[in-house]
């Protein structure tokens, strides 16, 4: 008895030491893969570096001055926001809609559930090739179909002109990533107790009222997470846009990721690219803080 009481603090200290020991590897790895590149990027951004040789001179904040005074960063930021907001809202609407549909007792439900994941599993390169073929202005199926239906009377240059290029990129992004929303929302839908819907029916709520008053509030928490994650991922999206339009026409679909890439490997300005990426990170940080502040309290 006395042994137990005197030993408790010691035991707790031992546990604390064990805990520190157990998370140490995580902290080391975290520092190596996250903190080091972050610090390196900030360090690089203070130099003017020629990419192939990685040699350059310290220029202080000159790269940041260029960022603030030049047009490129702000243009790309605007493009990134249009892309992110556009594709993310489409993903959410499509994803929630599809999840609601798949939650119904329809006979092809299990088949549809696996089919819907297809775009998400498909490699981006393959998906983009297919879409470029569909979007092609000369032999693309999209133009062919729309002309057959009488919606278009001239073939449209889908990826080569604005605003079509942006619309095309947003559509493909939504198509590629909405399955993620479907899966997460569907999982949550299945945990909503039937009794809530039954109570709402007895209380006189129709299908639409039941969606707003029961389903949506229950989905709130999962939607917060989905929007947070997808916003980060869409904001950083590179391969899909790069492969689809390469940022063109001119720079009209050049998001920040593409700008950084171009600056680093096409213009060979690694220092300037690093400054852009630090700027990009700061923008994201601001958004995340605002977002977490708005939703975190509940």
């Amino acid at each position, binding site marked *: 008895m006395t042994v137990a009481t005197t030993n408790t603090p010691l035991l707790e200290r031992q546990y604390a030491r064990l805990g520190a020991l157990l998370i140490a590897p995580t902290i080391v790895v975290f520092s190596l893969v996250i903190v080091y590149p972050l610090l390196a990027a900030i360090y690089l951004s203070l130099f003017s570096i020629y990419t192939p040789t990685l040699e350059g001179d310290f220029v202080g904040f000159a790269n940041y001055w260029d960022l603030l005074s030049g047009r490129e960063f702000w243009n790309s930021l605007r493009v990134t926001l249009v892309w992110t907001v556009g594709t993310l809202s489409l993903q959410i609407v499509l994803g929630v809609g599809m999840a609601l549909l798949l939650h119904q007792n329809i006979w092809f439900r299990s088949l549809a559930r696996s089919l819907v994941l297809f775009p998400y599993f498909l490699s981006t390169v393959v998906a983009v090739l297919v879409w470029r073929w569909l979007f092609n202005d000369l032999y693309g199926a999209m133009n062919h179909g729309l002309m057959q239906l009488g919606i278009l009377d001239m073939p449209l240059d889908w990826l080569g002109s604005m605003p079509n290029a942006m619309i095309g990129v947003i559509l493909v992004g939504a198509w590629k990533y909405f399955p993620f929303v479907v899966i997460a929302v569907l999982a949550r839908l299945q945990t909503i107790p039937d009794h809530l819907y039954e109570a709402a029916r007895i209380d006189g*709520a129709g299908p639409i009222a039941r969606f707003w008053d029961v389903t949506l509030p229950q989905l709130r928490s999962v939607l917060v997470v989905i929007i947070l994650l997808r916003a980060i991922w869409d904001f950083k999206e590179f391969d899909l846009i790069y492969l689809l339009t390469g940022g063109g026409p001119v720079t009209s679909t050049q998001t920040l990721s593409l700008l950084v890439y171009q600056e680093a490997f096409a213009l060979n300005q690694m220092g300037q690219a690093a400054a852009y990426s630090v700027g990009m990170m700061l923008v994201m940080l601001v958004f995340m803080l605002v977002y977490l502040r708005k939703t975190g309290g509940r």
Partner: protein
Amino acid sequence: MADVTLKNVRKSFGTFTALENLDIEIRSGEFVALLGPSGCGKSTTLRMLAGLEFPSAGEISIDGRVVNDVAPGKRDIAMVFQSYALYPHMTVGQNIAYPLRKRGVPKDERAAAVQKAAELLQLEPLLDRKPAQLSGGQQQRVALGRALVREPKVFLLDEPLSNLDAKLRSYMRAELIELHRRLGKTMVYVTHDQLEAMTMADRIAVMHGGRLQQFDTPDAVYNRPANRFVASFIGTPSMNQIEGTLAGDTFTRGAMTVPLDRARFAAEDGPCVMGVRPEAVTIGTGHVAATIRLVENTGHELIVSLALEDGTRLLSRVEAGRRLSIGQTVQITFEPDAIHLFAPEDDGARLNTDEDASVIPMRSH
């Protein structure tokens, strides 16, 4: 006019028949309990009244109107779920106001109605809380408030007290009785707890295996059970049922013979089952010998487990304070007026003729 009726209702889930030949007529303002063991179809019956399930055959009407095809929201009923089913993101006030909001009641009227319901159920201090911040009993009251705020014709309650602890349950039982008395509305109350049914209901519908066994007052289901199932289901400890043979003026089982007044029974000679409630088995005098096997003291009475000479087990209820010891051989008597006879089948019907003779006068121990 009957307020709620089920006419020859059947309900099947696929090939499984959950309810059959269900005929119930509930009078306006009546408090009816649906009582039966788990899986007997009580909830299904209630959900059909609510419109959450549809009968496979038969007719359901509420206030003279056939409602088979009427949506739950249009039946003028309210339901309290066992799990309460409160909307978790709404405050107590919003929960209670919800059925009014969905019916387009103006805001100030809504507020007044919520206020009234909250007063009735003593929920005023809780109106701004979320359901997750309430105790089980408080949630239960909110669910009741949401049900009664729009003054429906019929209240449907599915085991509303089963999640509460014993003390709160008996408190809420009294509250519900009081509420029913004050509102005078028809209430259909599902329970598997006979104490709830006996104490609260005007009439009890005893169900078993998807069939209605008896639909009568608590007094009648206790004193004049329609069949062996009702006899054994109602009453704790349940009625002794002894299989034996009826011949002339005696019921025989092994060495035991019990004299009967044949005029009281519409039974023919042959195999039958004698039913005697434990309180009608008196220990002390008589010509049936039994051995005491177990004595359980509940405080105000003793439940005595007896074995007849051929091993048949019987229960007796006697006043506390009697000196009875295990292994002791005693003489027992069955109170002649309290003897029931049943047909020998598992659900054998009761064969007594004189309906009131078997009512046991309340004995004061």
